[in-house]
């Protein structure tokens, strides 16, 4: 039985071959824009990045093939080393501080739901929607030495110890100031995300837990946490990959300084490429960022597969 005839394809005199050709033409026509975009603006540049990373190349002059020299130079370079350390420090503390904090807030919002809940959630999320340039502007407004809000308050109350702290200029503290601002800006999204996943948990499960005499926090730790462990792991991967790509906030708040205290791989890439015009080295940094994020993403997926649970 030929279903095409049953389905009454438009023109009866059209041969089957012609219809097949029509479908193929349709597919090509519909896939072409997306494929072209990716081929030109993503896959071609990726190929170029790998090539460039093996070359001594600057904005001007000939490019020379030098093998892995760029990578060797990077990994023996003090700036790049501190960039790597900063990025992993950032990733570690984001997972350890931002995710538990977001979980605590998200669960509190769900478990103590009242009239304010939706408003509070909207306020938290506002900080995540603010573009990083504005977040950096507010960050400096709070943390700038002498004239910033914190300095101003500490002078008002004569807290000399606090007035002396240079939040963005002291190499020991700058990292944490930037991290604090980033936490302020990022957790809104995590809260919304975790809340959405907690609200998906069937109410029967909670009622059963209540019957067994669990209070809210026992329920949170022993039941909610295991159930939403998959989305939490996704956020953890987002945190880690986000740290590898980190650029805007540290660049705008401190420019990577003082010294290398807040240098990230993104800032090093930008400075090598667009300040020093060392295309080859910058491309090598790009490859490192890519490979590291690939490792973490693949690790997440294989972890998930091993446990055999999906969402």
């Amino acid at each position, binding site marked *: 039985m030929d279903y095409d005839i049953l389905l009454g394809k438009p023109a009866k005199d059209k041969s089957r071959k012609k219809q097949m050709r029509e479908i193929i033409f349709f597919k090509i026509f519909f896939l072409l824009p*997306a494929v072209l975009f990716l081929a030109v603006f993503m896959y071609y540049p990726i190929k170029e990045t790998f090539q460039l990373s093996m070359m001594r190349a600057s904005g001007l002059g000939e490019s020379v093939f030098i093998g892995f020299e760029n990578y060797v130079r990077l990994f023996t370079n003090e700036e790049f080393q501190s960039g790597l350390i900063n990025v992993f420090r950032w990733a570690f503390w984001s997972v350890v501080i931002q995710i538990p904090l977001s979980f605590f807030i998200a669960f509190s919002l769900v478990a*103590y739901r009242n009239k304010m809940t939706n408003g509070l959630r909207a*306020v938290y999320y506002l900080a995540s929607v603010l573009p990083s340039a504005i977040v950096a*502007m507010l960050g400096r407004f709070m943390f700038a030495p002498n004239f910033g809000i914190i300095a101003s308050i500490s002078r008002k109350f004569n807290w000399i110890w606090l007035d002396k702290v240079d939040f963005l200029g002291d190499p020991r503290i700058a990292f944490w100031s930037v991290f604090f601002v980033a936490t302020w800006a990022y957790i809104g999204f995590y809260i919304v995300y975790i809340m959405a996943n907690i609200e998906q948990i069937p109410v029967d499960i909670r009622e059963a837990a209540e019957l067994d005499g669990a209070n809210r926090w026992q329920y949170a730790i022993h039941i909610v946490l295991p159930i939403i462990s998959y989305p939490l792991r996704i956020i953890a991967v987002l945190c880690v990959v986000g740290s590898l790509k980190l650029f805007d906030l540290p660049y705008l708040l401190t420019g990577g300084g003082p010294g290398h205290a807040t240098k990230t791989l993104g800032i090093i890439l930008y400075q090598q490429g667009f300040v020093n015009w060392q295309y080859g080295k910058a491309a090598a940094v790009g*490859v490192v960022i890519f490979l590291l994020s690939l490792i973490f993403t693949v690790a997440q997926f294989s972890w998930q597969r091993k446990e055999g649970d999906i969402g």
Partner: protein
Amino acid sequence: MNDAMVEKNKKDFRTGSWFSGVIINGILILLALSVIIPLLLPWFFVFKTRLECSYNPWSLPTQIRWSNFAEAWTAIRIDQGLINTVIVCLGAIACTVPPAAMAGYIFARYRSKVTEVIFYLILAGYFVPIQMVLIPLYKLCSQLSLTDTLPGVILSLAAFGIPFWTIIYRSFFQSLPGELAEAARIDGAGHMVTFFRIMLPLAKPATVLAVLLVFIGAWSDYLLSLILLNSQDRFTMQLRIAQFLNAYGVDHMPRYAAAAIIAAAPTIILYILGHRWILRGTLAGALKG
């Protein structure tokens, strides 16, 4: 899970003391204040003169002066940036959403071995950090004479947005019942007509989501505009804010406060107007992704 069931899940706990509720709600309100206060504090300084601000930062302003706003406005010129930003946003939507919808439709409804391979190539693009290709992207744009033009930013943003939205559209079209398209085909509609008349209108929730979130993404973009744009009159809003940040310090507090208010105002106004949609969109994305 449908909305009614989620609504039922929102039922409150029966047990627990009122005391813990007070403490937790207190913490939650404090956290909300920590978001709001930095946005409101600039108003405290913006009406003062520089001198008044450094001697009596925490007293009420002696009179309401608007001159700081004028000064900050000429320094930041956010109006020019705003126009460029809106152009970038609209361009990014126009270049991201239609290709993603079309490709997602093919991947969902016209599957074959070839389309599966192409789908995985596009899916892989989702994991490519834009930082990785920054240098070649810049070189490519200068070869195409797209540097220092808004289309350069738009096309690059689109290329990095398409993978995610293709995935979303694909799963959305897969979730729609197939009979509708078949019925349209029986009525003699061609492939194109079926897509544009039947399937695309049904995918409206996905489209609303895509338009909204692509808009927000383009609105906040900093890195791409930073490397691709270099003349003042093409700067986007974020570049202008960053420029102000690098040129003027906090030492002139009233002007800085005025600039902060001006810089944040467009985003906050948009958020107040659209936060329901934005939150709903994020939630849908959160549960799908």
